[in-house]
């Protein structure tokens, strides 16, 4: 905050508002900059591309946001997407499940999340360590199943679920992502699950002493995180037409980046699922715009890393806002 002295002089209320609107301003700013830099940016086609790219990330981030709101972290999301994507494609090819392959992803993802949650909550190991370990396990298993190669599928129904357009110009995967987002905003703000997860993040000891089943809800949060990563994995494979070793590879950085940029604090209790949409948009626009400008992928990594750090710097200090 010392960097912007004027900001400090604002009243706390104004400051909280400024912080809440910061991601929106960044979206507008980035879009403006890329629009000036590239004629291809403000085209319907590009908008469709951004939507499709952002969808996998958004779905995977929805569940992970609960884990972070709870004051924990899930590093295994990328690996979960890889493993669930691989297994749903293999199951599709073996049993001809069609659209049902998404259910395979969902179920397997939930099971993987359950493993994370049980080890974390009952083994009393920091979530960082648990999910660092399972990240390695899940991706190792997936790469063995795929034998290091991309496995494609043939199922028009499954493909249509991702890249079809029930609403013109809006890929179905984006539609599904937005619907899930809306549903989980409600879950976060208006259900017992959301309430308790926020309470654990804001004051775990208080929640426990108030008699809330803290451990059980820690497990639930990881199950939700895994299940949504599973859906993201299956749909990502559907969109790409195959499950390959690189599936979900950029998700570790992108998911944590999107959640944090959106304004959810890594220390827990502050932020929310509704804000993650903005974080995802910023990451997706950044990726897309830098591509259009012809920036090489290595430089893109540098830029993205810096943006994430700046976002956390801007958002630190007192609580951004209490959840509504």
């Amino acid at each position, binding site marked *: 905050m010392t960097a912007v002295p004027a900001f400090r002089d604002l009243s706390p209320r104004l400051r909280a508002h400024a912080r809440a609107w910061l991601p929106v301003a960044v979206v507008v700013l980035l879009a403006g900059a890329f629009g000036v830099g590239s004629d291809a940016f403000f085209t319907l086609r590009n908008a469709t591309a951004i939507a499709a790219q952002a969808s996998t990330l958004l779905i995977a981030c929805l569940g992970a946001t609960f884990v972070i709101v709870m004051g924990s972290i899930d590093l295994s999301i990328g690996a979960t997407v890889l493993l669930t994507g691989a297994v749903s494609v293999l199951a599709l090819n073996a049993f001809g499940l069609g659209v049902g392959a998404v259910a395979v992803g969902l179920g397997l993802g939930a099971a993987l999340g359950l493993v994370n949650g049980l080890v974390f909550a009952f083994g009393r190991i920091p979530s960082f360590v648990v999910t660092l370990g399972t990240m390695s396990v899940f991706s190792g298993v997936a790469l063995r199943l795929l034998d290091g190669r991309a496995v494609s599928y043939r199922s028009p129904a499954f493909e249509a679920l991702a890249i079809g357009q029930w609403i013109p110009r809006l890929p179905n995967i984006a539609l599904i992502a937005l619907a899930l987002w809306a549903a989980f905003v409600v879950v976060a703000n208006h*259900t*017992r699950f959301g*309430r308790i997860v926020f309470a654990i993040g804001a*004051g775990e000891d*208080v929640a426990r*002493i*108030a*008699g809330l089943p803290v451990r059980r809800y820690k497990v639930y949060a990881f199950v939700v995180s895994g299940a949504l990563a599973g859906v993201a994995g299956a749909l990502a494979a559907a969109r790409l037409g195959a499950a390959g070793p690189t599936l979900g590879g950029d998700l570790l950085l992108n998911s944590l980046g999107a959640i944090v940029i959106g304004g959810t604090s890594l220390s827990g209790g502050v932020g929310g699922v509704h804000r993650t949409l903005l974080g995802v948009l910023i990451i997706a626009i950044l990726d897309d715009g830098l591509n259009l400008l012809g920036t090489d992928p290595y430089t893109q990594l540098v830029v993205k890393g810096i943006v994430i750090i700046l976002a956390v710097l801007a958002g630190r200090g007192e609580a951004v806002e*209490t959840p509504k």
Partner: protein
Amino acid sequence: MSGLERLTGGRPDEAARPAPAIEFRSVSHRYGRIPVLADVAFAVAAGSVAGLIGENGAGKTTLFNILSGLAPLQSGALRLRGAAFAPRSYREAVEAGVSRVFQEQALIPALPVYENLLIGQEHRFERAGFRNRRAMIARAEAIAHEAEIDVDVRRPAGDYPFSVRQALEIARACLAPSLVLGIENPIVLLDEPTSALSVDEEAAFFRLLGRLKGRATLVFVSHRLNEVLKIADRVHVLKDGRLTASRRAGEVDESELHRLMVGRERGVAYYRQRTRVGADGAPVLAVRKVSRAGAFREVSFSVGAGEIVGVGGLLRSGKSRLGRAVAGVEAIDGGAVEIAGAARRSAVAYVPSERTREGVIGAFDIARNIGLGNAGRLTGRLGFWRARRETALAEEAIRTLDIRASGPAQRVATLSGGNQQKVVIARWAVRKPRLLVVDNPTRGVDAGARAEIYAILRRLTDQGAGVLMISDDLPELIGLSDRVLVMREGRLVAERAAPVERKPQEEDLVALMIGLPAADAPHREPRLQPAEGMAP
């Protein structure tokens, strides 16, 4: 707080002599809005032993913190050997020759004794980046020899029992400044040095102090008044942050020290106690021989409907952890806790002493904080949260408990301590508990809100609830309780009826807590050896 008067002017009467080792001149200190020291003034002569006594929260530790650089000097003046002194860090204090032996042991078990004795001074034994081990060992042996402690300084500190390690720590504090730093007449602060020692270890401790007397100026805090009188030259008494007396040890006896420490007046009306005690109600809580390793042993008692039972004891007597166990927040190793006619969690309310860490979530509004304890009744169909009902509960609580707030949406962090505490009580009060366990319900609460909290507790008992109140505040313990239990070293050692017309004396309760052979103590329990590393 209470309208008490200072018994002495506090002007050090030794000011005429050569500069005292330490001199406090009208030192005041506050944490936020809460005053902890008010106008404290006294001096400690060089080479003497000063005893510092007072109840929990009287300000002893704060005084030590100021002297050792852990708390800033907010107002007043502090002089060390005649010169102004205001250390900004512990290191600065140590370099000026002020060191401290903490309640928790500070030796590192895995390091050899000699490294422990010279910790922080290693650079004095280095040449060209290499450490001269032999010189370090020789110096450490000199310290151990001087203090007559029989140890092999090359062995890890963890190899020696607790009492030896403590002796080493005291020897380090007293002798390292002169033998290593070349500081004449160091000052050593001892914070309850004997609280974890057995009887024979205690005797060894006093022999050690006898040998070190004259080598250093010692200031020590203790709850054991007889021990203070035995080794101190002068005794300074703190009460509610004020110095109530500075006496030569030969001029006072234990009972006078008691009176100086605790004596104060506060009427029955203040606690809104009814003249007819509700102790005749059927028991709502029955505790049978509950134990918890390292905390309390075989404790049995009961609480009746409409009754307030107070539990008193020293800082580590096990009373707080007993409260947690009764409330189901902490597990028990043996015994049984029975609540009349209901499942434990839903019928027992728990108001913790650490309000900001365990009581409320400051970032949440009042409604959410109250909702935390009522998740069952606020969960609707399909797991949806009944936010409107939560707000209604909060509005009702704000009205009935008179919480000073703009409304249910006000953030709890912006409320005063007393109103925050009312929010914690409200969380439970809205579901009509059978039993309330409250731990220091008025700690850090101003006088007005304090009376209101007493009224709230009284009202809950009028409605038939039982209250188990753990308290470090003696007037509160005696005034509010219908019955007082005293714990010492993990045991329940006494029970006193406390009806309006026949309140127990503060002095008697303190004697029971400390374990003095007071005339009215019915039975003395054998001393319990506290486990090492017992949780505070």
